[in-house]
Protein backbone atom coordinates (compact mmCIF):
# COMPACT_ATOMS: atom_id res chain seq x y z
CA UNK A 1 0.00 0.00 0.00
CA UNK A 2 1.26 3.47 -0.86
CA UNK A 3 2.18 6.16 1.64
CA UNK A 4 -0.80 8.16 2.94
CA UNK A 5 -1.10 11.68 1.52
CA UNK A 6 -2.62 13.23 4.59
CA UNK A 7 -1.98 12.05 8.13
CA UNK A 8 -3.85 13.57 11.06
CA UNK A 9 -3.07 12.63 14.61
CA UNK A 10 -4.77 13.49 17.86
CA UNK A 11 -6.89 16.32 16.42
CA UNK A 12 -8.89 17.92 19.21
CA UNK A 13 -11.20 20.84 19.54
CA UNK A 14 -13.77 21.84 22.12
CA UNK A 15 -16.41 24.53 22.09
CA UNK A 16 -16.97 25.78 25.59
CA UNK A 17 -17.49 22.56 27.48
CA UNK A 18 -18.35 20.43 24.45
CA UNK A 19 -15.52 18.26 23.13
CA UNK A 20 -16.56 18.27 19.48
CA UNK A 21 -13.43 16.43 18.35
CA UNK A 22 -11.30 14.60 20.90
CA UNK A 23 -8.11 13.04 19.61
CA UNK A 24 -9.06 11.98 16.10
CA UNK A 25 -6.43 10.27 14.00
CA UNK A 26 -7.13 9.78 10.35
CA UNK A 27 -5.09 9.14 7.24
CA UNK A 28 -6.05 9.49 3.61
CA UNK A 29 -4.33 7.58 0.83
CA UNK A 30 -4.27 8.30 -2.87
CA UNK A 31 -6.86 6.33 -4.79
CA UNK A 32 -8.83 5.42 -1.73
CA UNK A 33 -12.23 6.50 -0.42
CA UNK A 34 -12.47 6.81 3.34
CA UNK A 35 -15.97 7.25 4.67
CA UNK A 36 -16.44 9.24 7.85
CA UNK A 37 -19.55 7.85 9.47
CA UNK A 38 -21.27 8.72 12.68
CA UNK A 39 -24.45 10.10 14.22
CA UNK A 40 -25.41 13.77 14.05
CA UNK A 41 -23.12 15.95 16.07
CA UNK A 42 -20.37 13.33 16.14
CA UNK A 43 -17.81 15.92 15.02
CA UNK A 44 -17.39 14.97 11.37
CA UNK A 45 -17.72 18.45 9.92
CA UNK A 46 -15.54 19.80 12.70
CA UNK A 47 -12.79 17.35 11.63
CA UNK A 48 -12.88 18.84 8.14
CA UNK A 49 -12.79 22.34 9.54
CA UNK A 50 -9.72 21.48 11.58
CA UNK A 51 -7.89 20.05 8.58
CA UNK A 52 -8.74 22.94 6.26
CA UNK A 53 -7.84 25.61 8.78
CA UNK A 54 -11.38 26.93 9.15
CA UNK A 55 -11.04 26.13 12.83
CA UNK A 56 -7.96 26.16 14.98
CA UNK A 57 -7.18 22.84 16.67
CA UNK A 58 -6.60 22.75 20.42
CA UNK A 59 -4.18 19.89 19.93
CA UNK A 60 -3.02 17.45 17.29
CA UNK A 61 -1.16 17.49 14.02
CA UNK A 62 -1.95 17.23 10.35
CA UNK A 63 0.77 16.42 7.85
CA UNK A 64 0.21 16.82 4.15
CA UNK A 65 2.90 14.93 2.23
CA UNK A 66 4.97 15.12 5.38
CA UNK A 67 4.51 18.86 5.75
CA UNK A 68 2.50 20.32 8.63
CA UNK A 69 -0.60 22.24 7.66
CA UNK A 70 -1.67 23.09 11.21
CA UNK A 71 -2.31 26.76 11.71
CA UNK A 72 -2.29 27.56 8.00
CA UNK A 73 -5.03 29.78 6.61
CA UNK A 74 -7.77 27.96 4.67
CA UNK A 75 -6.66 29.36 1.32
CA UNK A 76 -3.11 28.11 1.90
CA UNK A 77 -4.34 24.62 2.67
CA UNK A 78 -6.52 24.74 -0.43
CA UNK A 79 -3.59 25.76 -2.60
CA UNK A 80 -1.65 22.77 -1.32
CA UNK A 81 -4.20 20.55 -2.95
CA UNK A 82 -7.00 20.05 -0.44
CA UNK A 83 -10.45 20.70 -1.86
CA UNK A 84 -13.58 20.55 0.24
CA UNK A 85 -17.29 20.80 -0.13
CA UNK A 86 -19.71 22.16 2.44
CA UNK A 87 -22.71 20.51 3.95
CA UNK A 88 -24.70 23.64 3.05
CA UNK A 89 -22.94 23.89 -0.34
CA UNK A 90 -22.11 27.63 -0.18
CA UNK A 91 -22.34 28.15 -3.90
CA UNK A 92 -21.65 31.59 -5.33
CA UNK A 93 -25.36 32.16 -5.61
CA UNK A 94 -25.43 35.22 -7.83
CA UNK A 95 -22.81 34.03 -10.29
CA UNK A 96 -23.42 31.84 -13.30
CA UNK A 97 -22.74 28.12 -13.09
CA UNK A 98 -19.77 28.54 -15.41
CA UNK A 99 -18.34 31.37 -13.30
CA UNK A 100 -18.74 29.25 -10.18
CA UNK A 101 -16.57 26.60 -11.78
CA UNK A 102 -14.15 29.07 -13.34
CA UNK A 103 -13.63 30.65 -9.95
CA UNK A 104 -12.46 27.26 -8.72
CA UNK A 105 -9.70 27.17 -11.31
CA UNK A 106 -8.32 30.56 -10.35
CA UNK A 107 -6.38 30.91 -7.13
CA UNK A 108 -4.46 34.15 -7.47
CA UNK A 109 -6.12 37.10 -5.77
CA UNK A 110 -4.13 39.51 -7.93
CA UNK A 111 -5.73 41.55 -10.75
CA UNK A 112 -4.92 38.78 -13.21
CA UNK A 113 -3.88 35.14 -13.09
CA UNK A 114 -0.26 34.11 -13.70
CA UNK A 115 0.81 32.00 -16.66
CA UNK A 116 -0.57 33.97 -19.59
CA UNK A 117 -2.65 32.61 -22.44
CA UNK A 118 -1.56 28.98 -22.17
CA UNK A 119 -2.54 28.77 -18.52
CA UNK A 120 -5.81 30.48 -19.30
CA UNK A 121 -6.62 27.89 -21.93
CA UNK A 122 -5.81 25.12 -19.50
CA UNK A 123 -8.10 26.67 -16.88
CA UNK A 124 -10.92 27.07 -19.38
CA UNK A 125 -10.49 23.47 -20.42
CA UNK A 126 -10.54 22.31 -16.80
CA UNK A 127 -13.72 24.29 -16.17
CA UNK A 128 -15.47 22.94 -19.26
CA UNK A 129 -14.43 19.40 -18.40
CA UNK A 130 -15.77 19.77 -14.87
CA UNK A 131 -19.05 21.05 -16.27
CA UNK A 132 -19.26 18.19 -18.72
CA UNK A 133 -18.48 15.53 -16.15
CA UNK A 134 -21.15 16.83 -13.81
CA UNK A 135 -23.67 17.23 -16.60
CA UNK A 136 -24.00 20.97 -16.15
CA UNK A 137 -22.81 22.15 -19.55
CA UNK A 138 -26.34 22.93 -20.71
CA UNK A 139 -26.94 24.99 -17.57
CA UNK A 140 -23.65 26.87 -17.69
CA UNK A 141 -25.25 30.29 -18.08
CA UNK A 142 -27.87 29.84 -15.36
CA UNK A 143 -27.25 31.41 -12.00
CA UNK A 144 -26.42 29.06 -9.18
CA UNK A 145 -29.38 30.27 -7.16
CA UNK A 146 -31.78 29.19 -9.91
CA UNK A 147 -30.61 25.57 -9.99
CA UNK A 148 -32.60 22.63 -8.70
CA UNK A 149 -31.40 20.77 -5.61
CA UNK A 150 -29.52 17.96 -7.33
CA UNK A 151 -27.95 20.37 -9.80
CA UNK A 152 -26.66 22.46 -6.93
CA UNK A 153 -25.02 19.44 -5.40
CA UNK A 154 -23.37 18.64 -8.72
CA UNK A 155 -22.22 22.24 -9.09
CA UNK A 156 -20.55 21.91 -5.72
CA UNK A 157 -18.81 18.79 -7.08
CA UNK A 158 -17.91 20.58 -10.31
CA UNK A 159 -16.06 23.24 -8.33
CA UNK A 160 -14.05 20.53 -6.64
CA UNK A 161 -13.30 18.77 -9.92
CA UNK A 162 -12.13 22.02 -11.46
CA UNK A 163 -9.88 22.79 -8.51
CA UNK A 164 -7.63 19.86 -9.52
CA UNK A 165 -6.88 18.93 -5.95
CA UNK A 166 -5.51 15.57 -4.93
CA UNK A 167 -7.37 15.42 -1.66
CA UNK A 168 -11.13 15.78 -1.53
CA UNK A 169 -13.03 16.35 1.68
CA UNK A 170 -16.70 15.89 0.83
CA UNK A 171 -19.32 16.81 3.42
CA UNK A 172 -22.49 14.83 2.70
CA UNK A 173 -22.30 15.31 -1.07
CA UNK A 174 -24.89 12.63 -1.83
CA UNK A 175 -27.49 13.41 0.80
CA UNK A 176 -30.92 14.01 -0.62
CA UNK A 177 -30.02 12.81 -4.11
CA UNK A 178 -32.46 10.59 -5.97
CA UNK A 179 -31.32 7.19 -7.14
CA UNK A 180 -30.15 8.11 -10.62
CA UNK A 181 -28.31 11.21 -9.41
CA UNK A 182 -26.70 9.12 -6.74
CA UNK A 183 -25.50 6.68 -9.38
CA UNK A 184 -24.00 9.55 -11.38
CA UNK A 185 -22.33 10.82 -8.27
CA UNK A 186 -20.91 7.34 -7.63
CA UNK A 187 -19.44 7.29 -11.13
CA UNK A 188 -17.78 10.67 -10.53
CA UNK A 189 -16.25 9.43 -7.33
CA UNK A 190 -15.01 6.16 -8.79
CA UNK A 191 -13.46 8.02 -11.70
CA UNK A 192 -11.60 10.32 -9.28
CA UNK A 193 -10.45 7.33 -7.27
CA UNK A 194 -9.05 5.74 -10.42
CA UNK A 195 -7.16 8.98 -11.06
CA UNK A 196 -5.56 8.71 -7.64
CA UNK A 197 -7.45 11.27 -5.62
CA UNK A 198 -7.53 10.68 -1.88
CA UNK A 199 -11.15 11.07 -0.85
CA UNK A 200 -12.75 11.50 2.53
CA UNK A 201 -16.51 11.23 2.38
CA UNK A 202 -18.97 12.12 5.11
CA UNK A 203 -22.11 10.15 4.43
CA UNK A 204 -25.12 9.03 6.40
CA UNK A 205 -26.58 6.64 3.84
CA UNK A 206 -24.97 3.28 4.52
CA UNK A 207 -25.86 1.96 1.05
CA UNK A 208 -23.75 4.70 -0.48
CA UNK A 209 -20.98 3.98 1.99
CA UNK A 210 -21.00 0.26 1.23
CA UNK A 211 -20.89 0.91 -2.47
CA UNK A 212 -18.17 3.54 -2.53
CA UNK A 213 -15.98 3.33 0.53
CA UNK A 214 -12.75 1.39 0.78
CA UNK A 215 -12.49 2.09 4.47
CA UNK A 216 -14.73 3.43 7.18
CA UNK A 217 -13.86 5.52 10.19
CA UNK A 218 -16.66 5.47 12.71
CA UNK A 219 -16.89 8.65 14.73
CA UNK A 220 -18.94 9.24 17.84
CA UNK A 221 -18.76 12.09 20.33
CA UNK A 222 -15.55 13.31 18.79
CA UNK A 223 -13.71 9.99 18.89
CA UNK A 224 -12.94 7.36 16.30
CA UNK A 225 -14.57 4.29 17.78
CA UNK A 226 -13.58 1.93 15.01
CA UNK A 227 -11.76 1.94 11.73
CA UNK A 228 -11.48 -0.68 9.05
CA UNK A 229 -13.05 -2.18 5.96
CA UNK A 230 -16.78 -1.58 5.46
CA UNK A 231 -17.97 -5.15 6.04
CA UNK A 232 -16.47 -5.47 9.51
CA UNK A 233 -17.55 -2.03 10.67
CA UNK A 234 -21.07 -2.21 9.35
CA UNK A 235 -21.63 -5.65 10.82
CA UNK A 236 -20.59 -4.59 14.33
CA UNK A 237 -23.82 -4.56 16.37
CA UNK A 238 -22.45 -2.16 18.96
CA UNK A 239 -21.71 0.50 16.35
CA UNK A 240 -25.04 -0.06 14.67
CA UNK A 241 -26.74 0.56 18.01
CA UNK A 242 -24.89 3.86 18.40
CA UNK A 243 -25.51 4.83 14.84
CA UNK A 244 -29.21 4.18 14.94
CA UNK A 245 -29.48 6.03 18.21
CA UNK A 246 -30.75 3.35 20.62
CA UNK A 247 -27.89 3.30 23.04
CA UNK A 248 -28.70 3.58 26.73
CA UNK A 249 -26.66 6.69 27.52
CA UNK A 250 -28.36 8.76 24.86
CA UNK A 251 -28.95 12.20 26.35
Amino acid sequence: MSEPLLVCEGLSRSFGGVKAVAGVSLSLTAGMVTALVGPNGAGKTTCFNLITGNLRADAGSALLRGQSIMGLKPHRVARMGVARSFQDLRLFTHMSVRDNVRAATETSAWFWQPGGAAARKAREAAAEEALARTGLTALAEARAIDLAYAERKFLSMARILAARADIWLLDEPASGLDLSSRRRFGELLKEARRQGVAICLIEHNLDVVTELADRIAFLDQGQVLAEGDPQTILRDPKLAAIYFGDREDAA
Partner: protein
Amino acid sequence: MIAYFTNLASLGAIFCILAATLNVAVGYAGIFSVAHAVFFGLGAYAGAQVSLLLIPDALVAMVVAALVAGALSLCLALPALRVRGEYFVAASLGLQMMAVTLFSEAKTLTGGIGGLTGIPRPHILGVEVSTLPVALAALALILLATALLMRGSFGRTLQAIRDGESAAEALGKNVAAAKALAVAFACAGAGVAGALFAMHMQFVNVESFNLDQSVLIMAMVIIGGTGTLWGPLVGAVILLSLPAGLAFMPFIPSTEVGAVQQIIYGLAMTLLMVFRPAGLVGDLSRGKSHA
Protein backbone atom coordinates in the same frame (compact mmCIF):
# COMPACT_ATOMS: atom_id res chain seq x y z
CA MET B 1 -24.09 78.92 -21.61
CA ILE B 2 -21.37 76.74 -23.12
CA ALA B 3 -19.20 77.39 -20.10
CA TYR B 4 -22.12 76.31 -17.91
CA PHE B 5 -22.44 73.02 -19.69
CA THR B 6 -18.71 72.30 -19.86
CA ASN B 7 -18.57 72.88 -16.15
CA LEU B 8 -21.51 70.57 -15.56
CA ALA B 9 -20.02 67.94 -17.87
CA SER B 10 -16.65 68.09 -16.13
CA LEU B 11 -18.27 67.64 -12.74
CA GLY B 12 -20.39 64.89 -14.26
CA ALA B 13 -17.30 63.02 -15.44
CA ILE B 14 -15.68 63.43 -12.03
CA PHE B 15 -18.71 62.08 -10.20
CA CYS B 16 -19.05 59.27 -12.71
CA ILE B 17 -15.52 58.23 -11.75
CA LEU B 18 -16.47 58.37 -8.09
CA ALA B 19 -19.62 56.33 -8.58
CA ALA B 20 -17.97 53.80 -10.87
CA THR B 21 -15.11 53.16 -8.46
CA LEU B 22 -17.34 52.97 -5.39
CA ASN B 23 -19.36 50.40 -7.31
CA VAL B 24 -16.31 48.13 -7.45
CA ALA B 25 -16.29 48.02 -3.66
CA VAL B 26 -20.06 47.97 -3.10
CA GLY B 27 -21.38 46.09 -6.10
CA TYR B 28 -18.68 43.52 -6.69
CA ALA B 29 -16.84 43.06 -3.43
CA GLY B 30 -19.80 43.67 -1.11
CA ILE B 31 -17.78 46.22 0.87
CA PHE B 32 -20.31 48.90 1.76
CA SER B 33 -18.15 51.94 2.29
CA VAL B 34 -19.72 55.22 3.33
CA ALA B 35 -16.34 56.91 3.30
CA HIS B 36 -15.68 57.34 -0.40
CA ALA B 37 -15.55 61.12 -0.05
CA VAL B 38 -12.58 60.72 2.29
CA PHE B 39 -10.48 59.32 -0.53
CA PHE B 40 -11.94 61.84 -2.94
CA GLY B 41 -10.68 64.46 -0.48
CA LEU B 42 -7.26 62.88 -0.04
CA GLY B 43 -6.83 62.88 -3.80
CA ALA B 44 -8.01 66.47 -4.05
CA TYR B 45 -5.61 67.71 -1.38
CA ALA B 46 -2.74 65.68 -2.79
CA GLY B 47 -3.43 66.85 -6.34
CA ALA B 48 -3.82 70.45 -5.22
CA GLN B 49 -0.55 70.41 -3.29
CA VAL B 50 1.30 68.89 -6.22
CA SER B 51 -0.09 71.58 -8.51
CA LEU B 52 0.63 74.35 -6.03
CA LEU B 53 4.08 73.32 -4.89
CA LEU B 54 5.55 71.11 -7.58
CA ILE B 55 4.19 71.44 -11.07
CA PRO B 56 0.65 72.06 -12.29
CA ASP B 57 0.65 68.94 -14.41
CA ALA B 58 -2.65 67.08 -14.49
CA LEU B 59 -1.08 63.68 -15.07
CA VAL B 60 1.42 64.03 -12.22
CA ALA B 61 -1.34 65.31 -9.94
CA MET B 62 -3.62 62.39 -10.78
CA VAL B 63 -0.90 59.80 -10.31
CA VAL B 64 0.17 61.23 -6.95
CA ALA B 65 -3.46 61.50 -5.86
CA ALA B 66 -4.11 57.88 -6.83
CA LEU B 67 -1.03 56.74 -4.92
CA VAL B 68 -1.90 58.68 -1.79
CA ALA B 69 -5.54 57.60 -1.76
CA GLY B 70 -4.63 54.04 -2.70
CA ALA B 71 -2.05 53.77 0.07
CA LEU B 72 -4.32 55.22 2.72
CA SER B 73 -7.13 52.91 1.62
CA LEU B 74 -5.56 50.57 4.14
CA CYS B 75 -7.59 52.45 6.78
CA LEU B 76 -10.69 51.10 5.07
CA ALA B 77 -9.30 47.70 4.18
CA LEU B 78 -8.43 47.00 7.80
CA PRO B 79 -12.01 47.03 9.11
CA ALA B 80 -13.16 45.36 5.88
CA LEU B 81 -11.00 42.38 6.78
CA ARG B 82 -12.20 42.27 10.36
CA VAL B 83 -15.93 42.79 10.15
CA ARG B 84 -18.84 42.78 7.75
CA GLY B 85 -22.32 44.14 7.32
CA GLU B 86 -23.53 46.76 9.75
CA TYR B 87 -20.21 46.74 11.53
CA PHE B 88 -18.30 47.71 8.46
CA VAL B 89 -20.74 50.48 7.63
CA ALA B 90 -20.28 51.72 11.18
CA ALA B 91 -16.49 51.60 10.84
CA SER B 92 -16.54 53.50 7.58
CA LEU B 93 -18.87 56.08 9.09
CA GLY B 94 -16.39 56.47 11.93
CA LEU B 95 -13.56 56.87 9.44
CA GLN B 96 -15.56 59.49 7.55
CA MET B 97 -16.20 61.51 10.69
CA MET B 98 -12.57 61.34 11.83
CA ALA B 99 -11.35 62.33 8.39
CA VAL B 100 -13.52 65.44 8.34
CA THR B 101 -11.98 66.51 11.63
CA LEU B 102 -8.51 65.82 10.29
CA PHE B 103 -9.20 67.70 7.08
CA SER B 104 -10.37 70.74 9.01
CA GLU B 105 -7.51 70.64 11.50
CA ALA B 106 -4.43 69.68 9.48
CA LYS B 107 -4.16 73.26 8.30
CA THR B 108 -0.70 73.04 6.76
CA LEU B 109 -1.80 70.26 4.42
CA THR B 110 -5.40 71.12 3.74
CA GLY B 111 -5.74 74.80 4.56
CA GLY B 112 -8.25 73.94 7.29
CA ILE B 113 -11.84 75.12 6.93
CA GLY B 114 -10.75 77.85 4.57
CA GLY B 115 -9.32 75.26 2.21
CA LEU B 116 -6.70 75.59 -0.51
CA THR B 117 -7.12 78.41 -2.98
CA GLY B 118 -5.43 79.48 -6.19
CA ILE B 119 -4.87 75.97 -7.48
CA PRO B 120 -3.55 76.31 -11.03
CA ARG B 121 -5.62 75.09 -13.98
CA PRO B 122 -4.60 71.69 -15.32
CA HIS B 123 -1.64 71.52 -17.69
CA ILE B 124 -0.35 68.64 -19.71
CA LEU B 125 3.33 68.82 -20.66
CA GLY B 126 3.29 72.53 -19.94
CA VAL B 127 0.24 73.34 -22.04
CA GLU B 128 -2.90 74.49 -20.30
CA VAL B 129 -5.88 72.27 -21.03
CA SER B 130 -9.49 72.38 -19.97
CA THR B 131 -10.67 69.80 -17.44
CA LEU B 132 -13.37 68.22 -19.53
CA PRO B 133 -11.25 66.21 -21.99
CA VAL B 134 -8.86 65.12 -19.23
CA ALA B 135 -11.74 64.06 -17.02
CA LEU B 136 -13.46 62.22 -19.85
CA ALA B 137 -10.24 60.43 -20.74
CA ALA B 138 -9.70 59.45 -17.11
CA LEU B 139 -13.30 58.24 -16.87
CA ALA B 140 -12.94 56.19 -20.04
CA LEU B 141 -9.73 54.60 -18.81
CA ILE B 142 -11.18 53.80 -15.41
CA LEU B 143 -14.32 52.34 -16.95
CA LEU B 144 -12.24 50.23 -19.30
CA ALA B 145 -10.08 48.99 -16.45
CA THR B 146 -13.16 48.28 -14.34
CA ALA B 147 -14.86 46.39 -17.13
CA LEU B 148 -11.77 44.32 -17.87
CA LEU B 149 -11.05 43.54 -14.24
CA MET B 150 -14.62 42.80 -13.27
CA ARG B 151 -15.24 40.49 -16.21
CA GLY B 152 -11.98 38.70 -15.57
CA SER B 153 -10.77 36.52 -12.76
CA PHE B 154 -10.47 39.40 -10.29
CA GLY B 155 -14.13 40.27 -10.65
CA ARG B 156 -15.04 36.61 -10.22
CA THR B 157 -12.91 36.41 -7.11
CA LEU B 158 -14.63 39.47 -5.61
CA GLN B 159 -18.10 38.21 -6.42
CA ALA B 160 -17.23 34.80 -5.05
CA ILE B 161 -16.10 36.40 -1.81
CA ARG B 162 -19.25 38.50 -1.71
CA ASP B 163 -21.47 35.44 -2.15
CA GLY B 164 -19.56 33.08 0.09
CA GLU B 165 -16.36 34.00 1.80
CA SER B 166 -15.56 30.61 3.27
CA ALA B 167 -16.24 28.81 0.00
CA ALA B 168 -13.95 31.23 -1.82
CA GLU B 169 -11.25 30.54 0.75
CA ALA B 170 -11.73 26.81 0.33
CA LEU B 171 -10.96 27.29 -3.36
CA GLY B 172 -7.64 28.92 -2.53
CA LYS B 173 -8.60 32.56 -2.72
CA ASN B 174 -6.71 34.93 -0.46
CA VAL B 175 -9.71 36.85 0.76
CA ALA B 176 -7.73 39.49 2.62
CA ALA B 177 -5.58 40.31 -0.40
CA ALA B 178 -8.51 40.45 -2.78
CA LYS B 179 -10.52 42.73 -0.52
CA ALA B 180 -7.55 45.01 0.11
CA LEU B 181 -6.87 45.23 -3.62
CA ALA B 182 -10.49 46.01 -4.43
CA VAL B 183 -10.55 48.73 -1.80
CA ALA B 184 -7.25 50.13 -3.04
CA PHE B 185 -8.51 50.19 -6.63
CA ALA B 186 -11.72 51.94 -5.63
CA CYS B 187 -9.95 54.47 -3.43
CA ALA B 188 -7.21 55.20 -5.96
CA GLY B 189 -9.95 55.93 -8.49
CA ALA B 190 -11.58 58.31 -6.02
CA GLY B 191 -8.16 59.94 -5.62
CA VAL B 192 -7.94 60.56 -9.36
CA ALA B 193 -11.39 62.13 -9.27
CA GLY B 194 -10.21 64.30 -6.37
CA ALA B 195 -7.19 65.64 -8.27
CA LEU B 196 -9.39 66.47 -11.23
CA PHE B 197 -11.88 68.16 -8.94
CA ALA B 198 -9.19 70.31 -7.32
CA MET B 199 -7.78 71.46 -10.64
CA HIS B 200 -11.23 72.07 -12.06
CA MET B 201 -12.56 74.09 -9.14
CA GLN B 202 -9.17 75.73 -8.41
CA PHE B 203 -10.31 75.64 -4.80
CA VAL B 204 -11.02 72.85 -2.38
CA ASN B 205 -12.19 72.71 1.20
CA VAL B 206 -13.53 70.13 3.59
CA GLU B 207 -17.16 70.86 2.65
CA SER B 208 -16.77 68.73 -0.47
CA PHE B 209 -15.52 65.70 1.43
CA ASN B 210 -18.00 65.26 4.24
CA LEU B 211 -20.52 62.56 5.02
CA ASP B 212 -23.16 64.17 2.82
CA GLN B 213 -20.86 63.82 -0.16
CA SER B 214 -20.16 60.18 0.66
CA VAL B 215 -23.86 59.53 0.89
CA LEU B 216 -24.46 61.35 -2.40
CA ILE B 217 -21.93 59.11 -4.16
CA MET B 218 -23.47 56.10 -2.48
CA ALA B 219 -26.90 57.21 -3.62
CA MET B 220 -25.64 57.46 -7.20
CA VAL B 221 -24.47 53.86 -7.11
CA ILE B 222 -27.61 52.61 -5.40
CA ILE B 223 -30.07 54.52 -7.56
CA GLY B 224 -28.32 53.47 -10.73
CA GLY B 225 -27.89 49.88 -9.63
CA THR B 226 -24.95 48.13 -8.01
CA GLY B 227 -22.80 45.57 -9.73
CA THR B 228 -23.46 46.88 -13.23
CA LEU B 229 -21.06 48.89 -15.36
CA TRP B 230 -23.51 51.57 -16.43
CA GLY B 231 -25.82 51.81 -13.44
CA PRO B 232 -23.54 54.08 -11.38
CA LEU B 233 -23.11 56.42 -14.34
CA VAL B 234 -26.85 56.67 -14.81
CA GLY B 235 -27.21 57.38 -11.10
CA ALA B 236 -24.50 60.05 -11.20
CA VAL B 237 -26.08 61.82 -14.15
CA ILE B 238 -29.56 61.74 -12.61
CA LEU B 239 -28.46 63.07 -9.23
CA LEU B 240 -26.23 65.74 -10.75
CA SER B 241 -28.89 67.05 -13.09
CA LEU B 242 -31.35 67.25 -10.22
CA PRO B 243 -30.16 70.67 -8.92
CA ALA B 244 -29.88 72.00 -12.46
CA GLY B 245 -33.43 70.83 -13.15
CA LEU B 246 -34.76 72.26 -9.91
CA ALA B 247 -33.16 75.63 -10.66
CA PHE B 248 -35.59 75.97 -13.55
CA MET B 249 -38.62 75.51 -11.35
CA PRO B 250 -39.77 78.99 -10.41
CA PHE B 251 -41.98 78.01 -7.49
CA ILE B 252 -39.09 76.77 -5.36
CA PRO B 253 -37.37 79.65 -3.55
CA SER B 254 -33.69 79.67 -4.47
CA THR B 255 -32.62 79.34 -0.83
CA GLU B 256 -34.50 76.06 -0.57
CA VAL B 257 -33.25 74.44 -3.78
CA GLY B 258 -30.52 72.62 -1.90
CA ALA B 259 -32.95 71.27 0.67
CA VAL B 260 -35.54 70.24 -1.92
CA GLN B 261 -32.84 68.47 -3.86
CA GLN B 262 -31.73 66.57 -0.76
CA ILE B 263 -35.31 65.67 0.07
CA ILE B 264 -35.80 64.34 -3.43
CA TYR B 265 -32.79 62.13 -3.32
CA GLY B 266 -33.49 61.03 0.21
CA LEU B 267 -36.98 60.04 -0.87
CA ALA B 268 -35.63 58.40 -3.99
CA MET B 269 -33.23 56.29 -1.94
CA THR B 270 -35.96 55.15 0.43
CA LEU B 271 -38.60 54.47 -2.20
CA LEU B 272 -36.15 52.62 -4.43
CA MET B 273 -35.07 50.39 -1.59
CA VAL B 274 -38.68 49.60 -0.78
CA PHE B 275 -39.89 49.05 -4.33
CA ARG B 276 -36.90 48.34 -6.54
CA PRO B 277 -33.89 47.36 -4.43
CA ALA B 278 -31.68 46.53 -7.42
CA GLY B 279 -31.63 50.13 -8.62
CA LEU B 280 -32.77 51.49 -11.95
CA VAL B 281 -30.37 49.58 -14.17
CA GLY B 282 -29.87 46.48 -12.04
CA ASP B 283 -31.53 43.16 -12.66
CA LEU B 284 -34.18 42.86 -9.97
CA SER B 285 -33.48 39.37 -8.79
CA ARG B 286 -29.83 40.25 -8.35
CA GLY B 287 -30.44 42.99 -5.86
CA LYS B 288 -31.76 40.76 -3.15
CA SER B 289 -29.73 39.63 -0.19
CA HIS B 290 -26.39 40.62 -1.53
CA ALA B 291 -24.75 41.00 1.87
